[in-house]
């Protein structure tokens, strides 16, 4: 397909852009335009669209730029809050998943042993972990126990401390 182009079209466009058409147009160019279908098309379209643009510009009811600016700032802020909160939401979901898994594991073990929850709780209560005296004696006798007790204690302290700091700063 050949795309029609006229060598003098640019001159016509320049005159139209500058608002100098047809007043500042030389008779020779005007004569050319009258005989050139492409230039006639250009003049027709340029003037029709320019008039439509002027008319449309008069129809718009603009908001104050300050309002638009303010809305954009609010959006930026809420997007930033969402971005910052994303890891916390992920951590909460992870914690919920772990809790659910633990609950399922507990229920499964109870189901296997016939749901003797009271007996299991009393068994847990008698465990050396909840009796510091017995725990220290055991830990002193078996060196491996030191780490087994220390690591979960430190981890629990860190988690609880983190939660406390978060809640305090949030408030």
């Amino acid at each position, binding site marked *: 397909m050949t795309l029609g182009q006229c060598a003098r079209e640019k001159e016509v466009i320049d005159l139209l852009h500058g608002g100098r058409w047809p007043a500042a147009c030389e008779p020779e160019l005007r004569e050319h335009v009258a005989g050139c279908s492409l230039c006639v098309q250009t003049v027709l379209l340029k003037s029709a669209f320019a008039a439509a643009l002027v008319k449309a510009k008069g129809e718009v009811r603009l908001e104050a730029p300050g309002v638009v600016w*303010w809305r954009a700032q609010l959006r930026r802020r809420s997007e930033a809050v969402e971005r910052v909160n994303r890891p916390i939401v992920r951590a909460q979901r992870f914690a919920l998943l772990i809790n659910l898994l633990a609950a399922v594991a507990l229920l499964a073990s109870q189901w296997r042993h016939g749901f003797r929850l009271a007996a299991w709780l009393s068994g847990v209560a008698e465990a050396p972990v909840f009796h510091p005296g017995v725990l220290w004696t055991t830990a002193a006798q078996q060196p491996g126990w030191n780490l087994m007790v220390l690591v979960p204690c430190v981890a629990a302290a860190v988690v609880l401390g983190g939660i406390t700091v978060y809640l305090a700063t949030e408030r």
Partner: protein
Amino acid sequence: MIWDYAIPRVETGVAAQDAGHPMDSEAFAGFYERSARSLWAYLARVSGNPALADDLMQEAYLRFLGASHLADGEVACRRYLFRIATNLMRDHWRRPRTSSIDELPETLFAAGDVSAASDAQVMLGPALAQMRPRERQLLWLAYAENYTHAEIAEITGLKSASIRLLLFRARRKVARLLRKETSAERIRA
């Protein structure tokens, strides 16, 4: 909050530029005054729906201001703004629930006050109504906004060579429609 530093405050005035904004509120106000009417005209005439043009224009400015980096210079910013608006319009047409631009009634495009306009200007509305959205877009950008093929390619995301061909066809079509409408109007008169 402990991570307040990461969240931008709602700033006004020049302080906003220091907070990482590419444009401060005063510069934006000037830019808005100079570009909003043209942008609205583009959206309204291409979509044929002034209410939609209002919504899309607001969204376009919000996204423009949300950009972390803006090109230097008003011309480039304006081009970027038109690009955002073009993408928003395209997304709107792609949504299944909204009506297609091709289903919009012709009256939406018709000119209201015709007293002072020439024949071709009056007939542009009905002629545009018979064009495809893409054709309306290209014609408006080329003949109302005076963008070059390369600039239209940047705004619409099409290749410059395709713009040339599409614009040539659209131009021929709209000129034919304008001539047809104008002669029909003369016969009626």
